[in-house]
């Protein structure tokens, strides 16, 4: 398939997913709302209703894109490590520690915080990978357990060392200004996080499609036995993919706490967003360059749902239902009648051409 046709068909898939999502939402709203059309209108239009809501939409998309990128790396290697949430908490915690350290008030605060967060996340990503390759422990369960552990550890440090009566018991004090991203548009959440997300997208794309490591990772994901036969050390690839994904998870943690939206560490700051990366990467078929677009689209729906919660009579959590159903639909292979016919025609044509060869 040529590059152009590929982009076309992938775009088609993503549009399909968006239509699925809107249709599912509409159905739910019809069940849930007393004034369904008005509610749906709120859902569809409200993210654009003010500069502030647009800012939130962009900021959410940044975070969703990073979560999607983290999942895309492990999914491309066909590893079901689901530890992004834990990596986010540890990353956020590490970035916070840097912000409150002497470094936090210097120009190096942001890069140092990001680096610390990435190292913390990488460690959390590494553990299930190592446990799988050396001890045969199932990565799904161990990475999920680490999510809970990381959450508790983060809360512990926050409660005992960072929170105070002045800051409120569930958050730390605000970071020094040098440790908070510069806002690109005043009084919105549009900040340096955008640069981080776009840069990460390019880096992940580059790693996957332009480096030998990325090719090895993808080949391992396609067929681990083939990888071993070719001389690829697939267990190293598997562990390094999980570690690299962990670093991105940690980075997302830094973007959360260093971003203008927070600028501090709060209990449960991630609010379940990390897992939404699964949806992003599935719809984008684990292709990094598609991830920002999917994140923007889904971020919009998510913001619509949140505003619907305030302005209409449907709770924001319905987005979870939409999300789950879209994953189900996108992961399934439905046979569209016309498609099967086309495949048969194509099959016959290649068969005929072979016969004459």
């Amino acid at each position, binding site marked *: 398939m040529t590059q152009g046709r590929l982009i076309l068909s992938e775009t088609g898939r993503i549009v399909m997913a968006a239509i699925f999502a809107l249709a599912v939402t509409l159905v739910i709203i019809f069940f849930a709302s007393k004034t369904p059309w008005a509610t749906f209108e709120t859902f569809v239009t409200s993210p654009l209703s003010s500069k502030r809501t647009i800012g939130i939409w962009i900021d959410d998309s940044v975070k969703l894109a990073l979560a999607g990128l983290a999942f895309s790396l492990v999914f491309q290697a*066909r590893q079901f490590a689901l530890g992004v949430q834990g990596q986010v908490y540890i990353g956020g915690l590490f970035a916070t520690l840097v912000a409150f350290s002497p470094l936090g008030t210097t120009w190096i605060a942001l890069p140092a915080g990001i680096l610390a967060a990435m190292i913390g996340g990488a460690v959390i990503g590494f553990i299930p990978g190592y*446990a799988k390759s050396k001890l045969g422990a199932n990565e*799904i369960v161990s990475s999920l*357990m680490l999510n809970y552990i990381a959450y*508790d550890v983060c809360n512990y440090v926050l409660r005992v060392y960072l929170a105070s009566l002045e800051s409120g018991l569930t958050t730390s004090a605000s970071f020094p200004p040098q440790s908070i991203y510069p806002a690109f548009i005043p009084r919105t959440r549009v900040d340096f996080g955008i640069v981080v997300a776009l840069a990460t997208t390019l880096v992940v794309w580059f790693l996957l499609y332009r480096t030998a490591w990325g090719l090895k990772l993808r080949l391992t994901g396609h067929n681990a036995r083939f990888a071993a036969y070719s001389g690829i050390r697939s267990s190293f690839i598997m562990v390094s993919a999980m570690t690299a994904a962990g670093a991105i998870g940690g980075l997302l943690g830094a973007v959360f706490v260093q971003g203008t939206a927070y600028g501090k560490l709060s209990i449960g700051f991630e609010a379940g967003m990390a897992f939404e990366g699964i949806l992003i990467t599935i719809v984008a078929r684990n292709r990094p360059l598609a991830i920002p677009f999917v994140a923007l689209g889904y971020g919009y729906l998510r913001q619509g749902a949140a505003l619907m919660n305030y302005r209409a009579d*449907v709770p924001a*959590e319905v987005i*979870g239902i939409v999300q789950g159903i879209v*994953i189900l639909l996108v*992961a399934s292979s439905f046979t569209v009648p016309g498609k099967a016919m086309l495949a048969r025609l194509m099959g016959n044509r290649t068969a005929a051409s072979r016969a004459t060869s």
Partner: protein
Amino acid sequence: MNEIIATILSATFVAAVIRTTTPILFASLGGLLSDLVGSLNVALEGIMLIGALTAVIVSAHAPWYIGVLAGLAAGGLLGAVMALFHLRFKADIILVGFAINIIAAGGTVTVLTYATGGDKGTSINIPSKAVPALDLSFLGNIPAIGPFLREVLSGHSYLTWLAAFMVYAIWYFLYRTPEGLRFRAVGEYPPAAEAAGIAPNRLRTYGLIASGCLAGLGGAQLAMFSFVGFTRDMTAGRGFIALGAVLLGRRHPIGTMIAAVLFGFFEALSIALPGILKWMPGELIHTIPFVVTVLALMLSSRRKVTA
């Protein structure tokens, strides 16, 4: 240290372990049944959550046992949905499972909001019922060990006894009945089952439905006995821990039960410890069941590593 050992050995603690084990045991047995026929059910967590909420809401309008049955039915329905998407539409079972978890997390809060008229946290204003406890205080009349037995065994939920019975029933099913033989054949070597005229996908569907039913029961026990009422995210990882118990249990009901009891033990310990080790931060005590699960997986896995 002595205090911890004394606590662990006390009858109240043993009874507490039985209580904490029950929901995990239900979910683990469910996970076992689907794992046996080749589908790792990562949706146990979400199914428990939906089972719990369904049981709570239905029990507000019906007798307790109808509530429990509703939880079971909701779980079975979700199992059927998983089977539909995984077996019919060929979606990856892990993704299907996670989609169910995500739907459960958002869906339960959504439904709770409507059921309570706006409360997104708990079902406190729904007059839900509890599963009655089975009173075995007559055991106290047995000489010598009587009081201990009464402490340990009396006052548990009916569902606890059902869970214990299910271990036996599933074992009997798998190892003594023709259907169980077919079930195990599909799990071990599907082509053999197929050659014998058995449709593997039909049994896989049954496995997933049974899996959902049991996880739903686990949810019902959680919201109608362990706690009375539903709270947001009340399963708190129990479904994932149950999945760990499935992996640890060597595909056998007894092994799965032992693993479930192990995790129940540490959950009970994490509940009892704050009273004993006052210096230890609650958050860290809270991580104990999760840490134990990871360690248990690391130390025991002999499953083949497939990259």
